[in-house]
């Protein structure tokens, strides 16, 4: 009798293990292949996301209030510095407008409707973050209904922070650049090197101990100096061209000493993201 029970327990355990891994492997495969999760999962996400608002909005409000108080402390100093920048900014803005107008006219002449730099944006606020040490994932409060699609790049503060990894009707998940998972971010980037040469590469990883993004297997021999700006190159057709990623921290050799490896300091602190902007390439449609 005793033997029978322990056997049955073993069978149950094995069945549970099989179901567990089957579900996990299945959902990872589905997630990589499909643009949206199955309808039932979307529905669950939307309901939970709605309920999350009850906790998330007051919590975010509290944080906002505390931030305001601490910001008040160094307002005077900041104000002086900002005033200097504002005068420069006005000039840049006017020039930017002129250039944008000229750009539009030139494009019309060429009968070019949308180029890789044309994108529209959706602004969303961050509801919460996955409480896991493995997934660096944010949950934002805009989804399909606002035009968010899978794999769109997500910006915050001054630069790129990640990409949309799952879209539901009213909320979606954003995988941060600091996620080291298998399906994590592979953004094509572009760096201007010395003497007109430039480097194209793909962000291949993230080093969590130094907080630097890595671009591996750069075969270009172009000299790259420290502090150079890194932007997305627009290759691949989903990410617009010219989104700011960060600055070159250092350039090294890869493990085999054959190609260059570039380390990038990200433009945004991944741990202080409250508002994000999802960028959509216009030429996609």
């Amino acid at each position, binding site marked *: 009798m005793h033997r029978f029970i322990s056997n049955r327990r073993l069978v149950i355990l094995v069945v549970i293990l099989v179901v567990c891994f*089957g579900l996990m492997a299945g959902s990872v495969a589905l997630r990589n292949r499909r643009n949206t999760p199955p309808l039932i999962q979307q529905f669950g996400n939307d309901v939970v996301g709605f309920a999350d608002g009850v906790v998330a909005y007051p919590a975010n409000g509290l944080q906002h209030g505390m931030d305001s108080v601490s910001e008040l402390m160094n307002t005077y100093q900041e104000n002086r510095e900002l005033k200097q920048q504002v005068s420069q900014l006005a000039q840049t803005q006017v020039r930017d407008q002129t250039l944008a107008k000229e750009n539009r006219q030139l494009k019309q002449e060429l009968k070019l409707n949308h180029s890789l730099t044309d994108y529209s944006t959706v602004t969303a606020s*961050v509801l919460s973050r996955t*409480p896991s040490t493995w*997934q660096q*994932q944010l949950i934002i409060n805009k989804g399909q209904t606002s035009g968010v699609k899978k794999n769109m790049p997500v910006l915050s503060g001054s630069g790129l922070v990640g990409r949309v990894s799952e879209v539901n009707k009213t909320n979606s998940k954003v995988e941060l650049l600091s996620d080291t998972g*298998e399906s994590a971010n592979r953004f094509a980037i572009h760096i201007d090197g010395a003497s007109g040469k430039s480097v194209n590469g793909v962000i291949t990883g993230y080093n969590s101990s130094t907080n630097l993004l890595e671009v591996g297997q750069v075969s270009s021999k172009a000299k790259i100096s420290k502090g150079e700006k890194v932007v997305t190159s627009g290759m691949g057709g989903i990410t617009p061209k010219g989104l700011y990623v960060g600055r070159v921290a250092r350039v090294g050799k890869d493990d085999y000493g054959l190609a260059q490896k570039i380390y990038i300091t990200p433009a945004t602190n991944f741990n202080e993201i409250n508002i994000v902007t999802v960028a959509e390439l216009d030429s996609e449609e």
Partner: protein
Amino acid sequence: MYRLSRLRYVFPLGLLAAFFLDGSLSKLCADLFFKYPYAMSSQLVMLWLVFTYFFKEDIDVPLMGAAVIVGILADVYYAGILGLFMFLYPAVIMMTRSLGKLLDRTFLSMILIFFIDLTVFEALNYFAYSAIGIIHVDFGDFLVYNLAPTLALNLIYFVVLYWPIGRLFRWSLSGRR
């Protein structure tokens, strides 16, 4: 009786609050929780489940069902990968039950049981995610950078919340007939 005590409101509401607070705290305190290279995961849900087991006295609270449901929610909403937490939370309950029978109900033995629960939970999480290829982290790195900070954070939760949650449960059990 579960149906007659205040626990029938307090338990599910607390569980949901714990679930959402996990995500909100991870966002608000991200600078603290994900300070490179360390990473902690906030597990208020597990804390609530374990506390409920310890403080419920002789009342039958549907812990197993609640654990499965909150596990499914965590899978769908936070991870986006189905099939892990919906088995891990019930496993934690089973483990707490079997350990709870061996040890008496003092503060130290409770915190010991919670410590063991957390360690097994995080280790199983690590092995499962490694097996399906979501993470590629050495076991040693996992112990130092993930498990140790997670244990520290959640044991602090335990110590800080032990008394308030104990009071809450005593209050919700006092009104029963």
